[in-house]
């Protein structure tokens, strides 16, 4: 009947778009649209661009990659369905993706059940803690960002800090992590405010933080909210310096906030943003410069660390398949876990049985915005 017809149409259409069977099927479920689109968009573009590049250079162990990428729109339920589709229908050997923590966590049970290695591009620490056998991730955790920021605050002598967080997954997760590690890092959170990701004005929240006597302010959030917070921070002439999170690590943030308002804002981020400022002998330099130049010339857009996460995931996977010499999911998983000394855009990755993130705090640079540009804080 009609349902059947549609089903088989769907199957036929997928088959049409589908691969020759010898290819290496790599799956991806990315939030190309929806509230996390500005993260997912560069991720998807990076994956397409880099897969094309790898295939042009002869693929992995002689086989071309067939990238099967779905747009989950940031909806975890949809992501979950695509996960099943990737596993059952597309028969992928590994999956990259999960732009957000929500979509990632929704997919995890599927890949764990099917024993397919999965490299997430989302931030929260719960993705890899506790360690799940088949789940890895490339971005630094929000907990690490908190620690890096608090470390810098403590070094500058700030102990009373105010937090203002986005109410989306990223903001809330980081807010919780920061509150968790605050005491151990020697800072006290004296104000804790929240805003909606689409809010136009955060002066009430910042006014309250200003009144709380906070010596520094941390904004955990991604998207357009942090730009508004930064402008409002300047508008209210708040003396306490503003810290942003790694969630705004793209040039776009400075444009949105305006270089005047963004002046002096600090944030922890990967070296990708300051590729040119890295020392010539820095092992990361060729990687980040290469990726940045490739991305910017291909898309005409500024590079962001989000696309970098996808880049890292793809090349970790490539290296793992090569070292495993096999496209068996279990073998790939073992090879991923054995990754060591991999230099990506986020830093040096060393996975192990009890660490599926593989990055240390050193991988973060503390950046400060000066004259509309990122500089490394020494």
């Amino acid at each position, binding site marked *: 009947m009609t349902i059947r017809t549609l089903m088989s149409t769907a199957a036929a259409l997928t088959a049409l778009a589908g691969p020759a069977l010898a290819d290496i099927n790599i799956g991806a479920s990315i939030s*190309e*649209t*929806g*509230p996390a*689109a*500005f993260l997912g*968009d560069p991720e998807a573009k990076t994956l397409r661009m880099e897969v094309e590049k790898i295939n042009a250079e002869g693929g992995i162990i002689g086989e071309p990659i067939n990238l099967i990428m779905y747009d989950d729109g940031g909806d975890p339920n949809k992501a979950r369905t695509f996960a099943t589709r990737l596993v059952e229908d597309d028969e992928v050997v590994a999956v990259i993706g999960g732009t957000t923590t929500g979509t990632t966590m929704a997919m995890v049970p599927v890949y764990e059940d099917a024993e397919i290695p999965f490299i997430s591009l989302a931030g929260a620490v719960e993705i890899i803690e506790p360690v799940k056998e088949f789940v890895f991730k490339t971005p630094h955790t929000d907990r690490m960002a908190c620690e890096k920021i608090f470390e810098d605050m403590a070094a500058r002598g700030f102990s009373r800090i105010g937090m203002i967080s986005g*109410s989306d997954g990223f903001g809330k997760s980081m807010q919780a992590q920061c509150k968790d590690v605050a005491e151990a890092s020697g800072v006290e959170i004296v104000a804790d*405010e*929240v*805003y*909606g990701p*689409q*809010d*136009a*004005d955060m*002066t*009430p*929240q910042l*006014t*309250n933080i200003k*009144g709380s006597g906070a010596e520094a302010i941390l904004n955990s959030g991604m*998207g*357009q909210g942090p*730009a*508004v917070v930064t*402008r409002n921070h*300047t*508008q*209210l*002439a708040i003396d306490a310096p503003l810290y942003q999170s790694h969630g705004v690590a793209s040039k*776009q943030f400075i*444009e*949105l906030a*305006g270089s*005047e*308002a963004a002046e002096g804002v600090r944030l922890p981020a990967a070296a990708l943003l300051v590729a040119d400022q890295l020392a010539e002998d820095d092992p990361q330099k060729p990687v980040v410069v290469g990726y940045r130049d490739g991305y910017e010339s291909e898309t005409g*857009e500024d590079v962001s660390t989000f696309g970098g996460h996808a880049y890292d995931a793809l090349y970790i996977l490539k290296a793992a398949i090569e070292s495993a010499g096999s496209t068996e999911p279990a073998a790939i998983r073992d090879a991923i876990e054995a990754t060591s000394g991999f230099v990506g855009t986020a830093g040096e990755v060393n996975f192990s049985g009890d660490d599926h993130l593989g990055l240390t705090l050193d991988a973060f640079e503390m950046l400060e915005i000066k004259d509309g540009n990122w500089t490394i804080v020494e």
Partner: protein
Amino acid sequence: MPELLQFLFSGLTVGAVYALVALGFTIIYNASDVVNFAQGEFVMLGGMITVFAHAAGLPLLLAAGIAIAATAVIGVALNKLAIEPARGAPVVSLIIITIGASIFLRGVASLVFDKQIHRFPAFSGDAPFRIGGATILPQSLWVIAGGVAVFIALWLFFTRTLTGKAVLATSNNRLAAQLVGINTNWVMTLSFALSAAIGALAGVLATPITNTSYDVGIALALKGFAAAMLGGMGNPKGALVGGILLGILEALTAGYLSSQYKDAAAFIVILLVLFIMPQGLFGARQTERV
């Protein structure tokens, strides 16, 4: 006291944006009894077209003008292609048609433009005015002025001009309006053009504050709709008051109670108002005719 003043300034800024969106709802509703859920996309288009025209090298004013004109044309097209053919459909069908239109416009925008967040510079710089220990950005004044100006213009339009009265007549009784010689098709075209233009103007004025991207329309339509219903659908005064009230409510809740639940507070107040005044604050009371 400076806190309160700051909260009020914040509420005014945000509320003026809501009010502009709500005013856009008003005209279409008045002419056709349709609540256009794609109104938020008009705001988005106003902002995005300006951004890209400006980036292409046009001066900001010209870019804004083009954005408003182009959005008005899109509004007319929406009416001709989707609303007119569905005349007489039940409320729930109209809701789905206009939501479909909003998804469609969003999809087109993500293709024609991009999925990144954009902004263009504020009209009069970013140096805030300081009043009584609180601050307000010049762009906020632009938005507030825009809201008030559109309100006054609409009020004059509906009460003082023949065309405006024709719009109201069309909404009251389409057939009767036709019988007295009103070209109701033209009234509909005009209403959608005006509505879309006001939405686009909101986008142009607000983008330096709110930023814009292809999907800002959803949240704006939601708040604008809520504001319009709070004030009473179809009444420009209701739209203005509803919008500002909603903005101030959110700011005061964020300032004094909990920033977590500021959106919740807004909706609780809307629910309470509707329970007591089922037609909103300024909505016309309707008697059942049998």
